[in-house]
């Protein structure tokens, strides 16, 4: 059965402590019509599915490390994690802003349609996998297979990218400041035109990253695998 939820969710000065409240209680509070517009969640201790499914103009700070799927499917809300985030932070985000001040595990921003995900540290493998419109800015490095099958949106990597960056990419745009271990199938280096420098400057500014756009290289789809042709069989 669904977990029992206390009607008197304890909040004091906009702070809720996960040692005394459950994830269910916190999420129910945040999805309720009377949700506090600002809330700090303390002692998350790696809790999963925290602050997921938000759908209002809320400002939520998680003071510590979170487990899987923090801020999953976020809409409108701003969620800040002061520590590290587990797998799938901001997965399928639609809008809003999610900021991880530490490192992020695999699949950060997976399949997200919109909004901005900022990771100050490193993001592990598959960052931005199947991204569908989200903007992701990573201050450090990203792991292998990042932006795999990226459909739309922008991934900015201020450090290095692992192997098979942008494998089977569609229309997502990738910017990497450091080295790329290898490019995936159909992902190629592309010319950095003025409009790309401009959008990159905006993204870096929005993420609070102090790098110059001309330090980055742009990557995207060669569009050679959009329709199957037998001559390309070895590329798959």
């Amino acid at each position, binding site marked *: *059965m*669904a*977990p029992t939820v206390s009607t008197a969710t304890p909040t004091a000065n906009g702070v809720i402590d996960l040692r005394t409240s459950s*994830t*269910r209680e916190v*999420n*129910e509070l945040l*999805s309720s019509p009377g949700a506090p517009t600002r809330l700090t969640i303390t002692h998350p201790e790696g809790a*999963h*599915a925290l602050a*997921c*499914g938000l*759908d209002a103009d809320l400002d939520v700070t998680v003071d510590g490390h979170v*487990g*899987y*799927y923090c801020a*999953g*499917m976020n*809409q409108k809300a701003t969620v800040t994690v002061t520590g590290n985030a587990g*797998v*799938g932070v901001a*997965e*399928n985000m*639609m809008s809003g802003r999610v900021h991880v001040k530490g490192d992020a595990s*695999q*699949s950060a921003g*997976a*399949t997200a*349609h919109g909004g901005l995900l900022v990771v100050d540290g490193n993001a592990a493998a*598959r960052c931005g*996998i*199947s991204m*569908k*419109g989200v903007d992701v800015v990573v201050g450090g490095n990203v792991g292998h297979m990042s932006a*795999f*099958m990226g*459909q*739309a949106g922008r991934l900015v990597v201020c450090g290095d990218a692992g192997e098979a960056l942008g494998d*089977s990419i*569609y*229309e997502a745009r990738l910017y990497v400041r450091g080295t790329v271990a290898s490019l995936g199938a159909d992902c190629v280096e592309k010319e950095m035109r003025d409009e790309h420098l401009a959008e990159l400057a905006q993204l870096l500014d929005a993420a609070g990253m102090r790098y110059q756009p001309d330090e980055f290289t742009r990557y995207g789809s060669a569009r050679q695998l*959009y*329709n*199957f042709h*037998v001559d390309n*069989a070895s590329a798959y």
Partner: protein
Amino acid sequence: MTTPTPPTQLRESATFDRGVIAEIQRAAETGIYDIRGWGAKRALPHFDDLLFLGASVSRYPLEGYREKCDTDVVLGDTHAKFPLHLDIPITIAGMSFGALSGQAKEALGRGASEVGTSTTTGDGGMTPEERGQSKNLVYQYLPSRYGMNPVDLRKADAIEIVLGQGAKPGGGGMLLGQKITDRVAGMRTLPMGVDQRSACRHPDWTGPDDLAIKILELREITNWEKPIYVKVGATRTYYDVKLAVKAGADVVVVDGMQGGTAATQEVFIEHVGIPTLAAIPQAVQALQEMGVHRSVQLIVSGGIRSGADVAKAMALGADAVAIGTAALIALGDNSPRFAEQYGELGSAAGFYDDFQAGRDPAGITTQDPELAKNLDPVQGGRRLANYLRVLTMEAQTLARACGKSHLRNLEPEDLVALTVEASAMARVPLAGTNWIPGRY
């Protein structure tokens, strides 16, 4: 189509028959494997290989036209605040808008709603037509997450996490560019006309421990309201069902290798997975060993065609079944009405399986607006409702003959098998014996 009869002195190879030769020639000509729709076409042990033992002296039958045989089923009442209550245990399997026309999706919703059952979205998200016409709509959560958004998720009556399907367990999907219209492309955030690949694995979790956390997230996002199904293609069914239950599934959907597809490699359809008949007892055993048979419901799909199939699946332990191919046929797929058009496509009514091509004259597996007009969703819905009623009445007829006042009271003891293979797979005795291969 007529096949010329070879002179009697010619001997056809059993290994390299005409079909094999034609496929080798086709492969050599094109350099690409064959992709098609439908499901496995090879002969497999199936429900036809089972028979019911009607009541006589040792069992007491129910009067066919006077005594009640109920058909309702509740799905997902373990964890969800709002389980599904269906009037009949025959649901419509997941099929995408994109693979199917908007008219076809609407017709499926109309037909299912008319008889009080559910329909299911597919890859590509939820359309307003489908939601509007479906009283009970199950929202598929697939690896591609095309069109996935929390607004539609909350509009759904249940959520089905798809790990695989019977036609291609372990495989992803492919919607070929010719079916990618502006609308389909928009829903999936992709350019028009490109081949749309659907991944075979979910992008943000891998093993069963992760699945448990994914289920938790979906419950949190939907306020623990929706039943959560986990769908697997039938392979290592015993283990898959156990892991799905352990991860927290409310309902497990097992799709046998006869299950349909919109576009999959022929080699995949015919050579991967196990028959539905073999999968059901494995799933039931897993549920029984975990003490959750009937409380975690089992939906079985893959080759359900008649009320006899429905009744046999339920006798083996399923709580409900799902139909896909049969539902499309009920709408008008492969109808002789379109014999001429099928012929122009190099096929024939009763054989057409090029669902991937998007040129379906019946207006079902197409995105061509002109072809789609050939399906009237109101009439199609009516045909589907008729068919679902027939399936239900047929299943009731058999259940009453076995003395059952509810379809779910059917049991393996009501069945025998006609072949050794079916007996071993279904774990019911060979007819006229008490022998179950591998058991006694």
